[in-house]
């Protein structure tokens, strides 16, 4: 069982990691969720005892309740982070009109080049146009494609 | 005895569920799949839940009843919602000789249905 659990957790982790290496931001979030799932499963598996549901009265040996409490908290937290990640993806989409990392990285690259040449520290006013306008421009762009 | 009864019910409901899944797999279009799926499966669940009351007592019975009730209430809703979505999206009917009185011309002439 030990090795099966380990393999399963590792597999979940690997699938999550695989998705986190993708270009698509939404897949990245999915990868985060999967990695979180792997961690949660590991917490569950790291219970010091297996057994029946730990609700009194108990006639048999109960499962480790502590890991269950931990995994509950961890599930909730990874859920919250996942939700936040999704909202962030949306906002990245609004501001870049893309959820593709390669495009977003290109924007980042451009920025750092600008900085290298301009040499001014915190000024990102160059990119200060409002999201809405940006999006409208981009929409027109899409229509013509 | 009760246990055997329960086993029988278990086998029955699993069989019904299996049929439902097979139906989803094999039916030609979304409408017919919907027929196959949800109901067969939900019947399986209801049978199972109710049969579980045979060997269970107290708390379990209440909840088994509750499960059945909720499944009965919600399953038609999902079929309706999915079916309606299919209709609104003009999903094709892929069964030869399909009847369509909706006026949206969902019939497809291509003979793809073979059982």
């Amino acid at each position: 069982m030990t090795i099966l659990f380990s393999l399963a957790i590792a597999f979940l982790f690997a699938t999550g990691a695989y998705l986190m290496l993708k270009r698509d931001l939404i897949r990245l979030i999915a990868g985060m969720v999967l990695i979180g799932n792997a961690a949660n499963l590991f917490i569950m598996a790291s219970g010091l005892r297996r057994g029946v549901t730990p609700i009194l009265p108990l006639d048999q040996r109960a499962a480790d309740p502590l890991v269950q409490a931990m995994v509950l908290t961890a599930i909730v937290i990874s859920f919250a982070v996942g939700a936040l990640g999704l909202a962030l993806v949306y906002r990245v989409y609004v501001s870049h009109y893309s959820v593709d990392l390669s495009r977003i990285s290109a924007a980042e690259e451009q920025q750092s080049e600008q900085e290298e040449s301009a040499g001014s520290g915190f000024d990102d006013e160059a990119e200060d146009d409002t999201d809405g306008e940006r999006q409208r421009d981009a929409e027109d762009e899409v229509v013509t494609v | 005895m009760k246990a055997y009864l329960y086993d029988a019910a278990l086998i029955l409901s699993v069989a019904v569920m299996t049929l439902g899944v097979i139906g989803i797999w094999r039916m030609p279009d979304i409408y017919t799949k919907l027929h196959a799926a949800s109901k067969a499966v939900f019947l399986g669940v209801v049978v199972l839940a109710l049969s579980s009351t045979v060997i269970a007592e107290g708390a379990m019975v209440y909840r088994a009843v509750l499960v059945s009730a909720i499944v009965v209430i919600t399953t038609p809703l999902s079929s309706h919602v999915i079916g309606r979505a299919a209709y609104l999206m003009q999903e094709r009917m892929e069964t030869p000789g399909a009847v369509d009185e909706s006026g949206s011309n969902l019939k497809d002439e291509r003979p793809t249905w073979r059982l």
Partner: protein
Amino acid sequence: MPMANYRRNAGMLQSAARILLVPSFVIALAVMFKGYGDVGDGFSAGVIAALGALLQGLAFGAEELDRIPVIRYASIGTFVGLTIALGTAFFPLLTGDPILLHWPRAGEDVVHFGVLEFITPVLFDVGVFLVVYGFCVGAVHAIAREQERQVRDRERARKARGAERPTLAEEPLEVAE
């Protein structure tokens, strides 16, 4: 075009949504109150209640979420709930006790009414319930508002362009791939 009467024709879903509204909250509260002695806790209760509330939005449209106060002000509930939980946790400090002190004290007799126990953890769990309920409803509601905003923006953009053909991006319904 069948889409035209989309909302109006969703009568069956709407009826079901109304019918399930109170029961889903009842189930949620049951899950919460019994949680101390049985499966369930404030967290799952909050999500169940939130889903019951959101079902109204799914059936009646986003405006409905604004119409029902319990849903509209849910996100305030998050902070109310947080305050309840914090208050429960920190109140014992006033008497010099450690935070989150169990009341009535461990092992003492406790008043209970059915599954409802009058102990601080249950109050705490009510806070959790409110937080979670508020979060789930608030987050989805925020999505709904954003959606309305997008529709408004597109409408405005289309007007600005002179009511030409809609862009690909704004076309709500598309042929499946």
